């Protein structure tokens, strides 16, 4: 395996980590307005309170790793999706502030404004991440210098929009399961009823999305002929894991259902990676201008140095992140320090 492939995997791992971790934060945000009582809303906020900030770092580090390892991809994606990324940044800022400021004041207007900011910011962020992924799968117009030559409206085609919806559905389901794990009593009962909606909605979206991809993306169809076994196995595994989620919920094993949901996300990302590799940004209509892990990467030297740096850093990060999750295990309690 060459360094470029290793870095493709590493960036993928960081972004998958982001999806699994901040995914439930965003999902909690998307569900936020559906609980009405102030105390319940505080429970929701504090369920993610100690960890959301660390979860968002996965995105920042993923972005940094992309910059270091695949600067061309970083430059093309971020300048090409300019308006979408600005919207994403605005929603992430709003969301972060809403979490921080909401409980600082008891006023009703104050709280409902921030509640709105938290929910809208979360939904919009999840949706835009999905749309961006959809565009990368579908392909965007690039010129021979890998510059984006389309426009904002061109990025909003039905396929990408549908992946945006799917992502929102996925995060809502993921957040829902996380919340069941962290709550008890009446609130938990309510959240348990919600999975009867969130899980089927996501599974439906997931299936439609897969079928749509096969029929609408010719370049992915050709990949399917190249890697039928790998893609087939991963797809079947993904379906099994996703189907396992309602089963575990039904048996009351919430942690296992949460893990299944995480695994489902991991497999979805793997499916995505297998269908694009070695391309990173597919150029549509002119595939020759596509950015792949070779023409978009840093020099061998940088990839090598950064590989060692990551090899030392990533295990340390995973160790203490696990410790933090361990410290904050168990049901949420509202205390002096809570939001």
């Amino acid at each position: 395996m060459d360094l470029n492939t290793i870095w493709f995997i590493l960036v993928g791992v960081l972004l998958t980590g982001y999806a699994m971790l901040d995914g439930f934060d965003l999902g909690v945000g998307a569900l936020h307005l559906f609980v009405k009582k102030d105390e319940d809303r505080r429970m929701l906020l504090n369920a993610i309170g100690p960890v959301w900030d660390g979860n968002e770092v996965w995105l920042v580090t993923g972005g940094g790793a992309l910059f270091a390892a695949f600067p061309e991809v970083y430059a093309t994606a971020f300048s090409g999706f300019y308006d979408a990324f600005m919207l994403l940044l605005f929603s992430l800022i709003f969301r972060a502030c809403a979490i921080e400021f909401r409980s600082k004041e008891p006023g009703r207007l104050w709280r409902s404004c921030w509640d709105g900011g938290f929910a809208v910011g979360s939904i919009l962020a999840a949706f835009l991440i999905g749309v961006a992924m959809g565009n990368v799968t579908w392909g965007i117009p690039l010129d021979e210098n890998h510059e984006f030559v389309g426009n904002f409206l061109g990025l909003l085609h039905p396929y990408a929009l549908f992946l945006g919806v799917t992502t929102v559905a996925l995060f809502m389901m993921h957040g829902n399961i996380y919340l069941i794990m962290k709550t008890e009593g009446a609130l938990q009962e309510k959240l348990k009823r919600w999975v009867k909606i969130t899980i089927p909605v996501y599974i439906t979206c997931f299936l439609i999305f897969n079928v749509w991809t096969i029929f609408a993306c010719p370049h992915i169809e050709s990949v399917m002929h190249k890697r039928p076994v790998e893609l087939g196995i991963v797809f079947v595994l993904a379906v099994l894991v996703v189907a396992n989620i309602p089963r575990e919920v039904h048996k009351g094993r919430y942690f296992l259902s949460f893990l299944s949901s995480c695994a489902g996300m991991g497999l979805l990302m793997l499916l995505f990676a297998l269908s694009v590799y070695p391309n990173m940004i597919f150029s549509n209509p002119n595939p020759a201008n596509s950015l792949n892990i070779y023409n978009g990467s840093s020099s061998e030297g940088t990839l090598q140095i950064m590989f060692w740096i990551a090899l030392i850093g990533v295990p340390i990060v995973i160790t203490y992140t696990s410790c933090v999750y361990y410290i904050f295990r168990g049901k949420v309690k509202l205390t002096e320090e809570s939001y």
Partner: protein
Amino acid sequence: MDVEILSRIQFAFTIAFHYIYPVFSIGLGLFLVIVQLFWLKTRRPIYHNMARFWTRIFGLTFAVGVASGIVMEFEFGTNWATYSRFVGDVFGSPLAIEGLYAFFLESGFLAVLLFGWDKVGPYTHFFATLMVCLGSHFSAVWIVVANSWMQTPAGFVLAEKVKVTADGMHHPMTADLAAGTFSIQEIPLPADYVVQADQLDNVRAVITDFWGMVLNPSSIDRLTHVILGCWLAGAFLVISISAYYLLRRRHTEFAKTSLKIALVMGTTASLLQLWSADSTARGVADNQPIKLAAIEGLAESQTEAPLGLFGVVSWEKDAEGNITGINESSVKIKGLLSILVSGEFMDMTKAAETEVKGLYELPSDEFLLTRYPDATPEELAKIRPEYWPNVPVVFQTYHLMIACGMALIGLSVLGCVLWKAGYLFNVDKKWTRAFLWILVFSVFIPQIANQAGWFTAEMGRQPWVVYEILKTSEGLSKAVKAHQVLSSLIGFFLIYTLLFFVFLYTLNRKVKHGPRDDESIKVLPEKWQKIVKIEHGPTLDE
């Protein structure tokens, strides 16, 4: 307005806003470590009380810092895509390392610091505080390293990217080789290669020496300078709020103790800053002579060059509005700049003989000839001002920073003297009250100094984004149009204004609310009491 100026405004605006908060949290982080150390050592409840209150303030500055910081990471790609392509090989690594080694550390342990009081033992909690403090310092390290590389690039070569086919033939990057297989190679360019705007698609900086890049000629100086600036910001935030409590006669014991610790921290940092400023300025003289000439408004090269204290510098323009020179009138000390630049404080007369280059000779003819090989001396003189930064602005921001630095030294030293003489806490005295009021507003001084310093550094580098290699105007995103940047700029402006007022409002509420004087006794979790045998020292009520 065009994309360049809009993107520059947007970058300056977003970073200036962001730069308000991390400096607080870096400084406060160190303060928290000190306070927690005192608490573990003495077990006096007042230190625990302080740790809890200042952690709440810390949490607030941290939150806004994180929210606004996420923007910075992506703005290189959104607005400066050509720059990102050109330097990604070098510049991307410090950013990625910052994420992996600093952000994760900070945000992971921040959870324990903010919400872990009753979840972990005191030593674990102290460890978390230490890690958050360390993480935020690491963050400064890697950001300043990345920025310093732009100021004094090192550890890299310029290379041309080519496609190489199996038969060893080289093809340009844009060549369409159809389905044929090829690899991409980077061919180092000669050392005197001058970047041409139309070559930017296949020329880029390639790292050759990682540590050479990290420890580029200005990294250490600038890092020290920035960190000390952060400590000052944190210390003076504590000083300001404590002085306010003293004046209001609230939480007096709490405020006194906080003020003492912060004063020691502030005095140490401000005196060290004097030394660091000297070292930084000498580095600028060596590595970026144009910046030095600009910040001092020095037109002609001269020995016994004067150091300006304050004054006005303006452009001299010809009939068509082209810049031809500068007019400078300022109060100055003759020869001091030469002495400072030479660094030979033992032999002042000899030191004063050191020549400092002025703007009329910078950049040098040789440098300009590499860009304009056929230019006559008259033409070179005409071109030269295009390579100057905005001298009138840089002169003012620099001198504002120096004035703030001097004020900080004065205030902190005077504060220590008054404290030792026993006057500082005597709030019945009129002039003590006056001094404390000055301290209340002193929180703005390090902030102004930090911002002015940042603007001096960044505007002083112009028109270059990578000093003497890549121009700012060449680093823009080609795919982004002016109206897009304008609308995002308006968006940032609205959101940040709102955020700033909400921050001030919430901070004010927290300060008004004050520390809960009993929290160290009553709120102290059972778990802690078991582990740490509390010796009940003098409490606040006694």
